[in-house]
């Protein structure tokens, strides 16, 4: 029966090729547009470390200006910490792992190699690599002992290692970072978490850094933060020491807390520190000490922007237009063939069989429309990708990183195509079965 109905469907398509093409096109366009917006949305709202998202917490405290909130529209503490607060919190032994970091500009050069290269450098602590599960191609992280006092060790990204050493295993060699020699202890493998949840200050989809040095080097070499630094108050900041002791926030801190008990203890520790400082005259705003897990952090940081939500809505509105269109066209087409259906009914086909036959016709249409829609979505995404990539002059970073077609996108397309067109086909297929056969047997 299925084969027969399929043959009937193909025959029916052949009868009105124009109308059939129109329906396929409408379905395909609707699916293409909604799949495109969903793919980008999915890319934006992704949680790149979902498997341990509820163990990793960003640490923030509101030590901002008592007169003015950090940002009036957000009701959140500043996303970064001051050096003195971070230093104190970092001394806690409650977390299983803890990371303190910021990023800075630097210049890498290797003896006898190509010209020096400017690199974005992250000053961080040893746990960074294990905590965020950063993959290594060669070597490994430095040991916790190398954090303090800081040892002259460095980890390079794979890209930087390719540039400086042609991709060879460079572990054990030395490079110069600005004016100082560092021994390479590890080279990262390809790693590009999207969004860059552990530090969103330099852009949500920016590439990870090119070089990693122990945190204390940053302070010792008086390296300045090259992302967001925010200050308040009227104490002069003339020297680096002034800066370190100021109320300027510029450090990101993350802790890994495996249990709820550990989380509670950490929160108590922060609250205790807050109370002590509050008594001493700092932290004069309402108490707002936060441990924020990764998924909440991404929401608080507004990684998914309003434009994107709007586009998803638009995508579905467009899909709706296309489907209503398809319902109308299917209805017209089925009713047009009512005479044939009348004959079949008169020869004994039940309403259910007529319904099934037409539904199979709809199914065939939706399959073709779905495939075409997928292809169109791929073309559309490539176009958007090109738009972003050309604005970035071919450099990585930004939305271009999430305009790739992924498995989820394909599944969405297939699912949408099936659900949508079947939904669109139900009514016309049902309607045509309800037609009284008799009048169609008469001449018009």
């Amino acid at each position, binding site marked *: 029966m299925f084969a027969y109905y399929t043959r009937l469907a193909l025959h029916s398509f052949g009868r009105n090729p124009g*109308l059939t093409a*129109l329906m396929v096109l*409408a379905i395909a*366009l*609707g699916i293409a*547009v909604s799949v495109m917006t969903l793919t980008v949305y999915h890319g934006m709202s992704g949680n790149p470390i979902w498997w341990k998202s509820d163990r990793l917490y960003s640490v923030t405290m509101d030590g901002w200006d008592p*007169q*003015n909130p950090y940002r009036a529209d957000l009701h959140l503490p500043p996303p970064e910490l001051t050096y003195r607060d971070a230093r104190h919190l970092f001394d806690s032994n409650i977390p299983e792992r803890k990371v303190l970091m910021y990023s800075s*500009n*630097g*210049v890498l050069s290797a003896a006898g190699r190509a*010209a*020096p*290269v*400017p690199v974005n450098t992250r000053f961080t602590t040893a746990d960074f690599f294990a905590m965020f599960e950063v993959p290594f191609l060669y070597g490994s992280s430095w040991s916790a002992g190398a954090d303090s006092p800081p040892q002259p060790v460095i980890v390079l990204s794979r890209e930087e290692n390719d540039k400086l050493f042609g991709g060879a295993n460079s572990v054990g060699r030395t490079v110069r970072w*600005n*004016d100082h020699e560092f021994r390479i202890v590890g080279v990262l493998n390809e790693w590009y978490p999207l969004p860059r949840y552990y530090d969103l200050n330099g852009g949500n989809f920016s590439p990870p850094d090119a070089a990693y040095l122990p945190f204390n080097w940053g302070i010792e070499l*008086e390296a*300045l933060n090259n992302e967001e630094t925010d200050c308040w*108050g*009227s104490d*002069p*900041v*003339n*020297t*680096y020491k*002034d*800066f370190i002791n100021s109320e300027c926030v510029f450090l990101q801190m993350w802790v890994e807390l495996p249990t709820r008990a550990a989380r509670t203890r950490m929160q108590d520790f922060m609250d205790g520190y807050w109370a002590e400082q509050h008594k001493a005259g700092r932290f004069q705003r309402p108490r707002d000490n936060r441990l924020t897990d990764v998924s909440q952090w991404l929401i608080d940081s507004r990684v998914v*922007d*309003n*434009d994107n*939500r*709007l*586009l998803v809505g*638009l*995508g579905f*509105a*467009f899909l*709706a*237009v*296309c489907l*209503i*269109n398809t319902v*109308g*066209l299917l*209805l*017209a087409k089925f*009713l*047009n063939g009512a005479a044939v259906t009348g004959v079949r009914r008169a020869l004994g086909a039940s309403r259910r069989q007529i319904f099934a036959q037409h539904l199979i016709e709809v199914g065939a249409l939706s399959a073709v429309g779905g495939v075409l829609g997928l292809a169109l979505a791929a073309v559309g995404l490539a176009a*958007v990708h090109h*738009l*972003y990539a050309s*604005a*970035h*002059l071919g450099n990585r970073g*930004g*939305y271009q990183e999430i305009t790739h077609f992924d498995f989820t996108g394909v599944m969405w397309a297939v699912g949408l195509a099936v659900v949508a067109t079947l939904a669109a086909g139900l009514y016309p297929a049902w*309607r045509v079965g309800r037609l009284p056969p008799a009048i169609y047997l008469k*001449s*018009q």
Partner: protein
Amino acid sequence: MSLNVRPIMSALLRNRTGAVLVAMQVALALAVMVNAIYIVMQRVDKIGRATGIDVDNVLIVQSSGFTANYHHVATIQEDLAYLRSVDGVVAASAMRGIPLSDGGDNNPLVTRPDAQRTDNYNSWEVDEETLHALGVQLVAGRNFRHDEIQPPLTKQDASRFVPQIIVSRALAEHLFPHENPLGKRVYDSLNQTATIIGVVDPLMGSFPGMLHPDWVYMMPRAPADFLGLNYTVRTRPGTRDTVARLIEGHLAQSNPNRVIDSVRSLTYYKDLSYLADHTMAIYLVTVTALVLGVTSLGIFALATFNVSTRTKQIGTRRAVGARRRDIVRYFLVENALITSGGVVAGCALALAVGYWLSVQYALPRLNLYYLVGGVLSLWGIGQLAAWQPARRAAAVPPSVATRTV
């Protein structure tokens, strides 16, 4: 001339489904179109705002010293002398602050020493050639003189202020409403004071995305080595990219104690800052065009279907005296009725969506002119789409009435 609305209406009501489906499409299309175009126009306005800068002809060169042998002040002098000697360069300036780049410094300024510091304004460090290098117009007061350019900040006096500043007119009006800002004093966060000596207009600062991108002030000071230095180079029209290649080649070799991070056109920074708005506009226009296309195909298909199922009736009407133009009119009026139904529902939907967007995303409330434009264009599209089927209907010969199938 009667349009015979009543019989058309009754025929429509007898066969509702197709008409209702088309009207629904028209309603959705109107809601999508009106709101999308409204958002697009806001983005186009935003991208097209005056910058006051000769954006197309400006290059930005970023340079960083990185060795102990690096001499910052000497390097700046040497680089500027070289840049000004290059054929095609109109002016070159050493700055901290890249216009339209979405990155940079914001600092508070107040008009009385005891005032609350609530707002931050975009600040640039500039020299006496900056205005010329950007092509910015001085509208009051004077430019900085060479001898007024302060030495760069060091890690011993990083809080030092400057004696004079130049401000954008927008900032001047914000700080001193309805007053002549020239000669007025402003105070920084440490109550160090500076006098306003010049006003420029228009000028957009480093942050096009901020609420007040034109609140900018300039300090006459060489940029510090530890904070970052950029040269702003204005070129003769048509020579920008040639000059970029030339100076990049020279500067990368001229001093082993620094690297040239980048040599980029100002359009690069501008385009990147507006990329999201630009893409959004393209996307919205494309989807709107598709919505209209699909809707008009739907109208066309329904009209065609109606014509083909009514061939016999059309023949009968022709046989009893209806002219071709009566038949055409019948189908056009029918289409207008359907579209009107859709448009009425669409207006309500468009306003509801517009209201929801204004609440949810803090967009300005929908401008009603857009709604009127949308209604008119959908009526037009409906009539155009129904035109060809109506003509086909008119071509049905009266003799059809006498045939049986």
